[in-house]
């Protein structure tokens, strides 16, 4: 059985984070799937979906690390079109990935005690963002 759900969040970008664990858990519970996997897919190219401990220090450290790899104010070839200036957000998104899979065990997400499913939006623009949750299993 596969059950697909689409959710939206209003994100301010600029390294905004949103915990979506409970939304994914609700999708799993309502699907009736007891054993399988939940795929979470961020439908954009300037953000990411991650499993991490949702702690302020980790977010600050993650932002600092990504700033070293791809400075937000850097000069990127992506900007030559002059359509937008979010090259850093695209690179960070490519590095971190836009999807993940969490096992479903006994009808619930098989997450560890500190693990949260978090959407990270690095785009400089505030927008509505879409996430697809697909629950697979029996």
């Amino acid at each position, binding site marked *: 059985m596969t059950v697909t759900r689409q959710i939206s969040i*209003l994100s*301010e970008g*600029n*390294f*905004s*984070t*949103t*915990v979506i664990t409970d939304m994914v858990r609700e999708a799993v519970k309502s699907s009736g799937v007891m054993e399988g996997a939940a795929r979470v897919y961020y439908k954009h190219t300037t953000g990411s979906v991650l499993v991490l401990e*949702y*702690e*302020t*220090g980790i*977010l*600050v450290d993650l*932002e600092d690390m990504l700033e070293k790899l791809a400075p937000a104010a850097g000069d990127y070839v992506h900007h030559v079109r002059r359509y937008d200036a979010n090259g850093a957000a695209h690179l960070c998104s490519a590095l971190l990935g836009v999807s993940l899979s969490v096992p479903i065990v006994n009808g619930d997400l098989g997450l560890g005690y500190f693990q949260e499913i978090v959407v990270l939006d690095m785009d400089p623009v*505030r*927008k*509505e963002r879409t996430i697809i949750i697909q629950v697979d299993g029996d």
Partner: protein
Amino acid sequence: MAAIKSLIFWVSGVVTPALTGLTTAALPQQGSRIDADVWFGLLDLARELAAGTISESDYCEEVVARTSSPITGAELSAAIEQAVAPSPDMFPLYDEIKDLCRLYLLVDLPERWFAPLLRDARFAQTFSDPGAILRADRFGVKSSLELPITLAHSGLFDNQATLLIDADPRRAMQSTRAGLYAPIFVDAARLRREFVLWGLLPST
């Protein structure tokens, strides 16, 4: 960091549901336009209101105008006053922590919408000390987004022994960068887990 002695709770988003959510819920569902752009605009207005840059009546009039709602600003203000209440999930946590740390409220709601919280006997008992109530609009900032740095450098708190509980992740990161650690509030259960990690509460 030293042992934690003070906990500061932002009111909107932690003690009560966030003002933007309270506002949109108080608007008539029929005839009000609330798309993403409008919602982000309401968020900015709430931050200006928190800082005291605009008044409660200006906020309501502006919300009604931006959402094209078929009510008056005065009616919206009354509806928010009726709706605002302390989040019940937080009471067990206040009870558990109040004798271990000094609790403060960082009030980012106008007086009219904060007063109903103090009419709740259990809430009023928890925050009965008048010195525990800090108004966000006393700091002379233009938006509540600017408050973390001002508060961190105010000298009002020992930053090394204080946690500022904040539901706004970006603002919490700014606070932490300024030296005043701010756990991000998601819900009471997760906040309790954070207090356990800080050694404030035993794990269950």
